[in-house]
Structures are given as C-alpha cells and as structure tokens.
C-alpha cells in the first residue's frame, strides 16, 4: 500500500485527507473488480504492481499472476514497460499472453519474466495508461492491459501504477535470478541472457557511475556449456528423450556485459545480453557471476595489461536446448556417445574428442588439436600426484619431500594451538610470591588481541586494518625483492654484496683487472 500511496496520492493532501481517499479507492477496486468480472490478488512482495479499473492485475518478481473470475473469461496480456516514448514493447520486460481463465474459475499462471536493464535504469514514477480500446495515450510510457472476453478492460491512467523494485538481496551483493533457468529454448535461436540482483554500497565503492568500460567497472559474465547430451543412447524413435541424458563436457561459451552503476549506494541491477543460438540439444549449465576488475593499489592494468577480473558473486543453473533434428539424433546415436566424459569444469574450456571426427558438424581442427595434445587439468593433477606418490616419496628424496610437506604446513590437517607457558616463582619468601605458578596461554592472548584488531574497521569502506594495509606491505616486499634480484644480476645498485655472476660486478671487474695486468 505504501507503493500505491507513493505514486498515486497527490502530495498536497494531508494524512487525514489521504486516509478516506485510500479507503475509497480500495473499496472501488473491490467493488469494480467483482462487478467487472475479475479480481487479482497476491500476498507476496510486489515488485511491479499494476491495476486497472474493472480488474486488477498484479505481476510479481516471480512472474506469477493470480486471478479469479466471476462469469467471464480473462486473458492476460502483460507487455513490456517501455521507455523513451510511446512505444510499448520496445524493450524487454514481461512477456506473456493468451492464457485464459475459464469463467468462474480462479487460477494462477506464470509469465516469463525477462528483466531488462531499462527496468532498473530509471525509477518507475510514471503511470500506466490504458483506455477502453487498449490504446495508450501520450505521455504514457509504460503499459499493461487486461482483456476480458476479448474486450479491453477500461481503465484510467491514475488507476495503473508501477512500484519501484525493492532490494532483491537485502542490501548485500548477490545475483537473485538469472535466465534462461530451468526452461527450454529452441535450437539455433538466439536467446536473451539475463542477470538480476543487487550490488552493495561496499562493492560499488571506488567504481565510477555510468561507466560501461568493463576493464574499469563491474560486469556480468555468463558462461554456459553442454553438460548432458540428450538422445545419445535413446532409440531413434524417441522423440522426448529427456529421460536418457548422458554426461558430456561441452566447450564453454562466455558472454560478458557491463553492469552499470547509477549511484554510489546499494542498488539493484538487471543486465542483459543476447546469445547466439545453440545448435546442439541437451542440458546446459549456466554459470553467472558478477566481476569487478582486479585491482592492486587502485590500478586495474599495468603497462596496458589488464589484471583480469575478480568474482564477487556467482550462481549457476541449468537450461535445456531441445527440438533437435532427426539428423542430430541420428549422429548422436551413430557416434555412441553413451560414455561418461569429464564433467564440466566451470573455469576450464576443454574441447571434446568428437571434434576430431571427420563428420560435418563435429569436426573442428583447433579443438581436435587441443584435445589431442593439451592435457586436461585433471590429467595434470593425476600426473603430479603419481610423481609425488611413486617417485618423490621414495628414499632418499622422500626425506626432502617430507620436509617440504612439513614446512608447507600440509603435513597435518589438525589445527595446532599456540603453546602455553608456565612460570613458577622462585622460593624467595620476601616477595610473597614464592611457590606460586602462573600459566600464560598465548592462544587466548592472541584471540583477544585479534578480536580487538578486527574491531578497527574503516567506517566508509568497511575494510579491516589488514585489508587496507596489506597491499602496501606487499608492495614494499615486492619492490625489495626486485631490487635484490636486480642487484644480484646487474651488480647495481652498489658493487658489493652477493654475487650471482649474471652481469658485471665486483668479482668480474677484479678478474678483468687481473687479466689486464697479466699482459
């Protein structure tokens, strides 16, 4: 009701004047809803709310439309909140139409919610407009309409409204929903990739507003690949083959789009991009993550080389690509792909062996060479483990390996506590402490100290003392190490110290001097 009040009530009315107006308006909705043949209600949090005189439709962030009818068919036809002019449907948004609620039958249906960047870019402060024939007079910029038995529900601009989305993740950075998710898309048809969520003020810190350069601002990364092939082991006559998927490691397709910030505080976002169509049927895994440029002391690139991305939130889901052709099903059957392949590694793109098959649609020279000659991460791990277990742990090298394991801190997984010390006072009667024993527990002392240190937090960025100071310490150490290496190899700065021999240094100069004086 707050949202309704915010966008519908004239601001010049006092509270005492608004209250009866609210009650009257609510009563009108109920009466007109019943008399007009349709009422819609939903109890959960409203993100978008639209109401039309003669019927009320509420569309929620979960894409649900609740409806009940009295004596008439009700069709919904929810369309896009459009911006930038009288052009409904120009942008992505709600898409769904044609579902009918039979007369006198309450029902619930789900429309596909396709969030669009424009839906978050501007506050929804304008009203929907609709008239009795479904047109949308200027300056109406957003629209939704409801038809009953093929007739547009008459409505007025002031009776249709849209509320600003509330925070999706309770103020913390997260991805609340992605698409496509748990849905089916057709082969070889481009589809929308979407991500919706919240960026916290902490993660928005130090990132410019309105920036679309992904090397300097936030971005959304979608990566998806085929994880289960359909039809492979199914009979050729099987049309709906979702019951017989097989594991398959497909190559990952990666798409990225900028996540534009519009203010410096916590804010919701919706980012979309379009993916090319997928030709192969099966179940795809979709990984979505929010990335920010990796930054060292505020630098996102060194000598023009970007430092890459740091993931700050991620989620994953699956979707299905279906409607394969008979040829694809035949080829899958022919190739007998009913063998387990590597499971999809979300961070590694591994080509499939069938890219070497001299069959049109499968052969890919670069993938084939890659899969033939490049070991997978799993194979490399296995080799290293074999070398470790079979060679490096044998005597006498095994003693060195054991020492390295101990010094690396991986010899045991049991956490060690700091030792405690016991002090016994000498037997000197004059002190009054003779014979007393004190135990100093270092672990307790460190715990107390660290909790105190953890309390020192920058009030603006929320960063701890360590998060603030450690980059500077690492920088000093890195510069020191480089100076030492430079000195060892080049002999400068200074001409003394350790001599690695790579370059002109004191020893070499001395040998040259000896050589010259031998002549």
């Amino acid at each position, binding site marked *: 009701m707050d949202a309704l009040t915010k966008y519908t009530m004239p601001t010049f009315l006092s509270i005492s004047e608004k209250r009866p107006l609210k009650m009257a308006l609510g009563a009108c909705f109920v009466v007109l809803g019943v008399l007009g043949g349709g009422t819609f209600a939903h109890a959960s949090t409203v993100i978008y709310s639209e109401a039309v005189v003669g019927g009320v439709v509420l569309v929620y962030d979960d894409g649900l439309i609740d409806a009940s009818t009295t004596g008439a068919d009700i069709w919904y036809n929810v369309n896009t909140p459009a911006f930038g002019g009288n052009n409904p449907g120009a942008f992505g948004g709600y898409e769904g139409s044609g579902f009918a609620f039979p007369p006198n039958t309450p029902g619930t249906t789900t429309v596909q919610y396709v969030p669009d960047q424009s839906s978050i870019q501007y506050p929804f402060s304008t009203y929907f407009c609709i008239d009795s024939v479904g047109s949308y007079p200027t300056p109406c910029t957003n629209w939704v309409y409801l038809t009953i038995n093929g007739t547009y529900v008459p409505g007025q601009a002031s009776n249709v409204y849209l509320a600003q989305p509330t925070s999706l993740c309770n103020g913390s950075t997260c991805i609340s929903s992605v698409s496509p998710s748990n849905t089916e898309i057709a082969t070889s048809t481009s589809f929308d990739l979407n991500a919706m969520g919240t960026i916290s003020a902490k993660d928005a810190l130090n990132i410019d507003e309105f920036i679309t350069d992904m090397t300097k601002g936030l971005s959304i990364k979608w990566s998806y690949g085929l994880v289960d092939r359909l039809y492979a082991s199914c009979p050729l006559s099987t049309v709906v083959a979702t019951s017989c998927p097989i594991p398959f490691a497909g190559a990952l397709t990666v798409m990225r789009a900028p996540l534009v910030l519009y203010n410096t505080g916590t804010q919701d976002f919706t980012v979309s991009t379009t993916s090319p169509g997928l030709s192969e049927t099966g179940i795809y895994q979709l990984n979505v993550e929010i990335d920010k440029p990796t930054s060292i002391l505020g630098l996102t690139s060194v000598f023009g080389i970007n430092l890459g991305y740091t993931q700050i939130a991620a989620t994953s889901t699956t979707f299905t690509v279906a409607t394969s052709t008979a040829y694809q099903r035949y080829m899958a059957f022919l190739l007998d792909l009913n063998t387990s392949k590597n499971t999809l590694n979300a961070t590694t793109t591994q080509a499939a062996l069938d890219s070497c098959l001299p069959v049109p649609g499968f052969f890919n020279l670069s993938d084939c060479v890659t899969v033939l000659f490049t070991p997978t991460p799993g194979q490399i791990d296995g080799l290293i483990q074999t070398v470790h277990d*079979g060679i490096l*742990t044998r*005597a006498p090298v095994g003693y060195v390996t054991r020492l390295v394991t101990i010094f690396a801190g991986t010899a045991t997984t049991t956490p060690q506590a700091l030792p405690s010390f016991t002090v016994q006072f000498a037997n000197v009667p004059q002190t009054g402490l003779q014979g007393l024993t004190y135990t100093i527990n270092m672990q307790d002392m*460190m715990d107390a100290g660290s909790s105190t240190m953890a309390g020192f937090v920058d009030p603006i960025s929320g960063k701890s003392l360590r998060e603030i100071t450690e980059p500077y310490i690492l920088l000093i150490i890195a510069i020191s190490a480089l100076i030492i290496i430079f000195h060892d190899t080049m002999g400068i700065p200074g001409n003394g110290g350790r001599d690695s*021999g790579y370059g002109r240094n004191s020893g070499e100069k001395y040998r040259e001097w000896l050589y010259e004086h031998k002549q």
Partner: protein
Amino acid sequence: MITNAILSIIVNTFTILLSWIPQISTLPPIAGYDIDTALVTGMGQFYAFTNYVWPIRDVMLGAGFLWGFHLLLIFLKVILGSRAPSKSFS
C-alpha cells in the same frame, strides 16, 4: 591426450622401477628424538601464530620468491655448466 599418454608412460615406468625403494612417510628419529612430530607441531604452531601476525606471511612470501630465484640460478648453472655466465656457483 597424446601428451598425457606419453607423460603417463614415462612416469609409470619410473614408478615401477623405483617401487622397490622404501617409501618415506615420516622423518627418522634422531638420537631417539621424534624430529618429525616435533617439526609438524612446531610448524603448526608457527602457522597458527601467523594467522594472528599476518605480515609474517607476506615476508615469507617475498623470501620464498627470492629463494625461488636463486634456485633458478642454480638450475641454470647445472644445465649450462661452464657456459653459464656465473662465477659465484663455480
């Protein structure tokens, strides 16, 4: 696949050839003192300490980097022998 097969053959050959050599899981005691347990406990306590005094880990990271550099120099010396421009390891 091919690279992995070649490397696997080499590694497994060495593994079979060396299989008669005893496997080392702990350091041997020195004069009856269990040096392995002592070192494991000591390093565990040291890592516990560095959890609190974290700059030590940064310093160790830098020291490890330098050790790696010097190990690389030694490796080059071994590989290049007299052709190495180094005099310090000869």
